[in-house]
């Protein structure tokens, strides 16, 4: 049997993706770019959930699929969030002719 992948490798991958997503959120000015970076962060959390699920031994009261179910619902949430996000971006784009977050400065003070 070949050697298995240790749990920490998956965690490193998730941590690195999460950090990249966070960087993207901070550095992107375009709202759709921010949305993409958020998706990367959600995916990182999902990798964590499934890795912990596979490598952990569930306690008695826990279901057999806790981590997977969480990841499944997160996918649902992400889909809904993107739908609403694109709707909002379109709404703002029709008013400013731009999807640039920094130009939306009508409210401040």
């Amino acid at each position: 049997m070949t050697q298995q992948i240790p749990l920490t490798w998956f965690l490193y991958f998730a941590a690195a993706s999460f950090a990249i997503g966070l960087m993207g959120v901070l550095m992107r000015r375009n709202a759709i770019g921010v949305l993409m970076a958020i998706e990367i962060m959600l995916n990182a959390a999902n990798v964590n959930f499934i890795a912990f699920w596979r490598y952990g031994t569930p306690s008695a009261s826990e279901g057999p699929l806790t981590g997977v179910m969480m990841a499944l619902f997160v996918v649902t949430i992400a889909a809904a969030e993107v739908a609403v996000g694109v709707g909002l971006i379109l709404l703002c784009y029709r008013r400013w002719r731009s999807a640039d977050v920094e130009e939306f400065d009508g409210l401040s003070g």
Partner: protein
Amino acid sequence: MPSGLSIQDFVIFSPVIVLTVWGLLSLIIDLTLLAGQDSTTRNRSLGMFTLSGLVASLVLCQYISYKYIGPSPGTDPLIFFGSLNGGVLFNQFASLVILFAVLITCLSMVWNFTSHWGEYYAMLVWSAVSMIILIAAEDLLTLFLALETMTICLYLMTAMEKSKQRSAEAGLKYFVYGSVSSALFLFGLSLIYGLTGSLSISEIGLVLSSTQQPGLTGNVVGAVAVLLILVGFGFKVSAVPFHQWAPDVYEGAPAPVSAWLASGSKLASLVAMVKVMGGGLGSWAATSTPTSPGWVGLLAMIAAATMTYGNFAALGQKNLKRLLAYSSIAHAGYMLVGVIAVGLSTEPEEAAAALFFYLVVYGLTTIAGFALAAWIDRDRGTEEVEDLNGLARRHPYVGVAVCILMLSMIGIPPTAGFFGKLYMFMEALNVGGPDKVTMMGLVALGLFNSVVSAFYYVRILKAMFFRDTQRAELKWMGPEIALPLGLGTVLTLFFGLNSSVLLTDMESVSRSGLHITRRNPDPLDYNKPAPRTTRPSQLKPPEPSKPAEAAKPSGTTKPSAAAKTSAVINAPAKAEGPGSAASAKP
């Protein structure tokens, strides 16, 4: 596997089911019966329809409370396989959220800020549904899903005033900040899942308070998880480093939606925060040595910054909704002091009750405040503080009402706001041990901030009573403003004069619905009172040489495991940490 569904679960849950269906019906009615009608008619009819549903659901709640739950049954039962609380906590907070929603529906009927009324009322009702589920959620999966459903409905409601540019902008800002913070929150949850092997709040509390766990000292992953979870909640309650969205969104959203954000959303998020931080991560609240604080230390800094920033920023505001937004930030700061008290107190249920009292009173007062904003928005299209000039001379009753409300916001004796602050700060001062000094500092800062806040609340009163205006008089407010304003004022006064009514109620809620865990205070006690700490923590490395062996115990011990499960479901009170079990019983 927990025992199956019973019809009782559905009976207890029925107010929520009624509300969900009502939202769908309002969509359908808007598209069929009211097709082609003008916006005002649709607003009126759908508003009345929504009100009828909310009132029906409220009556159902009270009936169920009377018939099935009783006044104080000890420990709340869990429904739907342990994913929801189905007792006093669920019922009381469902009633409260529905009451808030009734007032918001009244405010929504004030003027036509959107033309999508079917969708608007559906979102309002559905966000109420997800707030109730958020409060009742007993596992982090349900909690996160409810949190997301609530915020997505709120993003949509914020952006629905399509005739105004600022509404769309507020919606997008709220969305960007909200979804970033929920992504951070989710990553925190995933780390917590990795550390404890569970998503059930009481299970997490058990694992973390067990003896094998080192606590937060030297636990970098745990610290990161706590930080991320605090970011998530901090955003939802608009605590200071994550507050930037709040003033813009409160100003840009229509007044009823802002009121809903400040009352319902804040109530639900703070109750969920108490459940997660107190119930799940309660044993990480503070460590025994003062040099390595738990989440309490972090939250203390956030609370101090939040109340100070909120109050000082509110001083310079001219827009009434923006002023109320900063005031809401400031109140979030006071409430976080309450959360800290829950984390440290030897009687966490009492502390939580004081916090809930404050939340309810704040919700009622702030809805009434936004009713004022809705009124001037309807008649003048703006909501500056100077639009209130001379209002009290023409409408003396309104003047008196707003006077009571502002006194309550500041925290002056005959009103409920005073008792809210009093109880909460008393609970904070009851904290003993090394954190007493911190709590005294926070309370002192809270009192100082209350004095600062008096300046801007009094400015509203000054405009109403002492300034005169040349502008056209406001029209009579009509019942849809009078009800939230009047009910808010009357209840503020009533709970001020009879504060024990609400406090007893909230105490029964927190006694039976919350299971705050505690770190075992004395290391020598570790082996003594642990009825359930022998449970193996989840992520134990299996024997690498014989992996098949590792699976066997979980297969053979199944009957006893199932028995244990039903014990958890039926008696979550046992889930309390040993520390609180020893000290919290009077």
